[in-house]
């Protein structure tokens, strides 16, 4: 009974949040709005990868590849097939996500028996392949990129997508599927002997992660109105990986927090550059990263969630 009330509350809070958002999003500065949208996209990316690497324990360095697939598929549809209507946009986002998920499935099926570094290198190779293929596809602009994508992504769409993907992952984690993921991360042999089909669940995790990356890519493309293959290089995959490790592998709220922090950090460091006239923004960024890893090797939150901490005890779920 109590959990039910909690749940109702959670939905209501989400609803109220959306209403408030719909009113304030027109009044906050476009700069902040843009950063919030970008954080939202990064949250989806980070949580998608977290599902694969943090929760199921399969190190993937190819998340940017799935993002590219989602971005290009949806942008292609928007530019050449449908146009900018909201409903078409929704369908295009989903199409982008599904295609990325499909590729995740195709890649995951044969490769997920590889372990550790070997899987990492295969996923890295895959995303580089996607990038090179896009570079050579004239129908989507090749190296010159795809411009004039309708500018559909706004704060509401992003907030909605973030909310839905977080609920999706959270609910998944609270089901036998999520528990199977965790079991695989903890011990594959024991998971098997508990009757868990590890290949099946690895593929499910990989496909869902890729799907979310595709959604994020679609939002990204319709936010920037322009994409080119170089955006989705391996550096992007590393950035996403940094987010989840910094937040604490396997922690939903940790990845979310880190995604927000890392989106705002380079911008917060801008004044420093303007004062000193020397651009050591990225030097600070990388040193902070090293210091963080040295002082908190298991990330900001470790494997815990925000609500596991005492300060947030008030919100603690029963």
């Amino acid at each position, binding site marked *: 009974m109590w959990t039910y009330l909690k749940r109702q509350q959670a939905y209501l809070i989400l609803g109220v949040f959306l209403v408030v958002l719909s009113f304030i999003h027109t009044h906050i500065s476009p700069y902040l709005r843009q950063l919030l949208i970008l954080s939202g996209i990064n949250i989806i990316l980070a949580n998608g990868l977290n599902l694969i690497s943090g929760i199921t324990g399969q190190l993937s360095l190819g998340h940017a590849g799935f993002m590219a697939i989602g971005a290009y598929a949806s942008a292609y549809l928007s530019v050449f097939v449908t146009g900018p209507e909201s409903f078409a946009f929704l369908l295009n986002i989903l199409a982008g996500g599904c295609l990325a998920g499909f590729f995740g499935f195709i890649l995951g099926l044969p490769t997920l028996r590889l372990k550790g570094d070997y899987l990492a290198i295969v996923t890295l190779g895959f995303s580089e392949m996607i990038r090179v293929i896009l570079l050579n596809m004239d129908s989507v602009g090749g190296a010159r990129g795809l411009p004039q994508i309708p500018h559909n992504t706004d704060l509401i769409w992003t907030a909605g997508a973030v909310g839905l993907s977080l609920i999706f992952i959270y609910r*998944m984690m*609270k089901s*036998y599927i999520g*528990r199977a993921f*965790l079991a695989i991360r903890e*011990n594959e*042999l024991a998971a*098997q002997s*508990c009757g868990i*089909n590890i290949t099946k669940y690895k593929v499910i995790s990989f496909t869902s992660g890729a799907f979310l990356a595709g959604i994020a890519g679609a939002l990204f493309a319709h936010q920037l109105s322009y994409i080119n293959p170089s955006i989705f290089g391996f550096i992007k995959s590393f950035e996403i990986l940094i987010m989840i490790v910094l937040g604490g592998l396997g922690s939903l709220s940790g990845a979310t927090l880190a995604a927000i922090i890392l989106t705002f950090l380079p911008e917060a460091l801008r004044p420093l550059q303007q004062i000193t006239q020397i651009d050591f923004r990225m030097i600070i960024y990388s040193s902070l990263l090293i210091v963080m890893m040295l002082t908190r090797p298991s990330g900001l939150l470790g494997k815990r969630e925000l609500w596991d901490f005492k300060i947030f005890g008030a919100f603690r779920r029963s």
Partner: protein
Amino acid sequence: MMSQPAEAILKVDNLSIAFGGLQVLMNVDFSVYSNEIVSLIGPNGAGKTTVFNIISGLYRPTSGSILFHSKNLTGMHPHRISNIGITRTFQNIRLFKDLTVLDNVIIAKHFAFCYKLLGSLFYTPAYVEEEAKAEKDALELLAVFGLAERAHDISKNLPYGEQRKLEIVRALASGVKILLLDEPAAGMNNAETSALLKLIHHIRDTFKITVLLIEHDMKLVMKISDRIIVLHHGEVIADGTPSQIRNNPHVVEAYLGNPT
């Protein structure tokens, strides 16, 4: 006690396996009957764990087969074998270390869930009922083994003996019919071992299961087993009741004249 039913629940038929020219098992042949406790013993390197690995589907035998109720299990995936009802524990404990005790048990109830992902997303009645039932069952099972109080602890923080116990609970939770225990008494003191002895008997009687175990502690083996199978250099050299085994000259020889 030894009234054997006509059909064996598990039949290991002419099993051989070789790793790169090294013949580890040679024509291993034995049967296990319903509700029995059978021990698999032998000196180090005799191939006991390999037999377990083949039964639980981790290795594929070079020849021979495993029959469960005359159904051939050879070449089946480990998770399917577990779903059929053969579950094992490991020599070096393999818990889901960073998860809670309760989660360890609920994960093993994997087979029991029928709702779909959508059910979880939309919080359907089926989801709620199944989850609640799984949690209730798991807690009850833990209570039987005196682990209920620690249900919400992280499992790696349990003392060693309780970790072993938890591994058994986890196996039971998965709806086991034949429980394979790989050195359950390893690292336990005398008191703990005798508690384990009772526990295994208790499990067998309450859950109506068959137990096949590997053990080095001869005192335990002699007390617990209905039947003992002795492996030596990958071959079965003896198969009989504890008293038969104790007096078997081959066995004595294999253990260099030093059985307990």
